[in-house]
């Protein structure tokens, strides 16, 4: 390899938040939703308010997503979004935000079809710091871990209320960047579970996982919930709630201001 590979920005993001005494805000949008050029504006707008941006790679069969993000995936694909557009959008955001954490999120078949080596190379070149593949658990890491490592990309691992201690250990061993705790047994966008049990599980995960940062997501809809989750986590993930602005707005031009306002209130909530 010619150029040295820059390391992931994710540890610096969490360090910076810690120094500033706040919790990271992690925002999600699907790339290419509702179309590539609008998506560019929305991603850039959301990046203004977030510490980490999760950029969704649209997929024909988003098995773990609820109706809001399913529809986002369908809109993006119908608008003709290709994986090349996902990388291009990632690069646009990276160029505008050199310190932002960027994670590409999606399902295994898209990177698998490209080949994990080429995918990792292109993701890194576009400026991504990490990758979260919903349907590659630790046990199947053999198909992607070496490629991600070679290109200095963090592998973000999911944990859920059903994860046993054994599974928490397994996921922690192959995770870097952060752990994404899915706060309920359900699809994206459903209601949050009981806050105390989420708190307990996050503490438990931290005890097992060698202090990897733990971000909590799936179901955060209001600034109040975000503020609560921020009390005991390293990051609050907001996805469906942001994506929903795309269909709630009367015109495409109305999406960006609504999204920005919503992101600003979430940002304020996690800072308090």
């Amino acid at each position, binding site marked *: 390899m010619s150029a040295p590979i820059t390391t992931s920005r994710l540890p610096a993001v969490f360090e910076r938040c810690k120094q500033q005494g706040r919790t990271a805000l992690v925002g999600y949008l699907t790339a290419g939703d509702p179309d590539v050029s609008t998506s560019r504006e929305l991603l850039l707008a959301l990046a203004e308010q977030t510490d980490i941006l999760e950029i969704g790679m649209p997929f024909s069969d988003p098995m773990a997503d609820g109706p809001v993000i399913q529809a986002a995936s369908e809109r993006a694909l119908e608008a003709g979004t290709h994986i090349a557009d996902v990388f291009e959008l990632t690069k646009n955001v990276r160029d505008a935000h050199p310190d932002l954490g960027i994670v590409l999120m999606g399902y*295994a078949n898209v990177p698998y079809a490209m080949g994990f080596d080429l995918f990792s190379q292109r993701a890194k070149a576009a400026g991504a710091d990490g990758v979260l593949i919903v349907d590659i658990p630790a046990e199947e890491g053999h198909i992607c871990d070496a490629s991600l490592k070679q290109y200095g990309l963090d592998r973000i691992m999911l944990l859920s209320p059903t994860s046993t201690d054994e599974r928490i250990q397994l996921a922690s061993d192959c995770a870097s960047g952060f752990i994404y705790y899915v706060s309920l047994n359900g699809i994206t966008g459903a209601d949050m579970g009981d806050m105390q049990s989420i708190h307990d599980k996050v503490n438990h995960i931290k005890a097992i996982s060698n202090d990897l940062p733990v971000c909590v997501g799936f179901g955060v809809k209001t600034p109040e919930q975000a503020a609560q989750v921020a009390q005991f986590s390293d990051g609050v993930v907001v996805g469906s709630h942001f994506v929903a602005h795309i269909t709630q707005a009367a015109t495409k031009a109305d999406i960006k201001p609504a999204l920005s306002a919503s992101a600003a209130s979430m940002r304020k909530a996690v800072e308090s």
Partner: protein
Amino acid sequence: MYNLDITHAPDAGGHFGKFGGRFAAETLMQPLKEIEEAFFEAWQDEAFHTERLDLLKNYVGRATPLYHAKQLTALTGGAQIYLKREDLTHTGAHKINNTIGQGLLARRMGKKRVIAETGAGQHGVATATVAAMFGMQCDIYMGREDMARQMPNVLRMRLLGANVIPVDSGTATLKDAVNEALRNWVATCEDTFYIFGTAAGPHPYPLLVRQFHTVIGQEARAQCLEQAGRLPDVAVACVGGGSNAMGLLHPFRDDESVRLVAVEAAGYGLDSGQHAASLAKGKAGILHGNLTYLLENDEGQVKGTHSISAGLDYPGVGPELAYMLEQGRLELEASSDDEALEALQVLTRSEGIIPALESSHALAAGTRLAESMSADQIVLINLSGRGDKDMNTVFKSLGWLEDES
């Protein structure tokens, strides 16, 4: 009568070579592991098999006959054609072998609710049937397009007390029904058992489904030896996901003289782009929890498929079949919509047996193979289901009913 050894098992992670595995969301990993443990524990338990085999005999009506189709053989000219009559099982298709097994497992695990995906509706009916018998709540996910073409089965499921949930996402067919069932299971796995209908999905489903269906091939093998005094030369089954194919073919895997043939749906033709031939035309990919052959575009987006038969209309295929193909132990054939329709009519007229459109794909390819063979050879075809559910589609195709679509 039945051999309960698990041969050709996948590795501990459920891999058949590079295929299979457990590519599932984290939330499902523990529930899948619990099913795997419950399955292996049950499989070692004599009481489990006693109850299962009793139900297969006295409720399902096994053993199903092996029928020497002499009229069809004469009409075809060539090898002797034997039909394994899974169409004569209770509910009319092989699917019940698996739902009895998984239903018993669900009950053993204390689950109160079962869910399933269905394409042609046969797996949905078989699941609803078992749920009725075991007194379990039952929700069936079915693509809206499939509901339209298999309405009799939708109504049967309702009569059996199941709730049929239409799926509108994606292509509104089987693959989307699987997505929707998975989404529901993620949220309900504590009290719900997902009765997966085909030999695909995340580990342990491909193994589970295969083991519960091997009764088909074990019976057929013994019956063929008894009736013809020898093994068949070719065993033929249609393939959507691969449940009836694994059930028939698996027990013949170590019989080197027996050719194993999987028949895929060629739809409007293999070169039309409108088919469901994942093994012939797909490439390795990851969907619904396993690595297997998929019909997809260059960027890994899964394609919509086409087949006249809803049960074969699936862009993936069981991982073990992908593995057997790669190992050279499986031969591929494909039958088009028209060939299947023709085969359905030929069997109906010559033998008085109306087969399902799925099984008609196997019949079309099986008779084609028989033609090129000699009269002292044997072609064994799995007649996986009966055709009642397909009458609307068939009548429309024959022009006897107006096609509203």
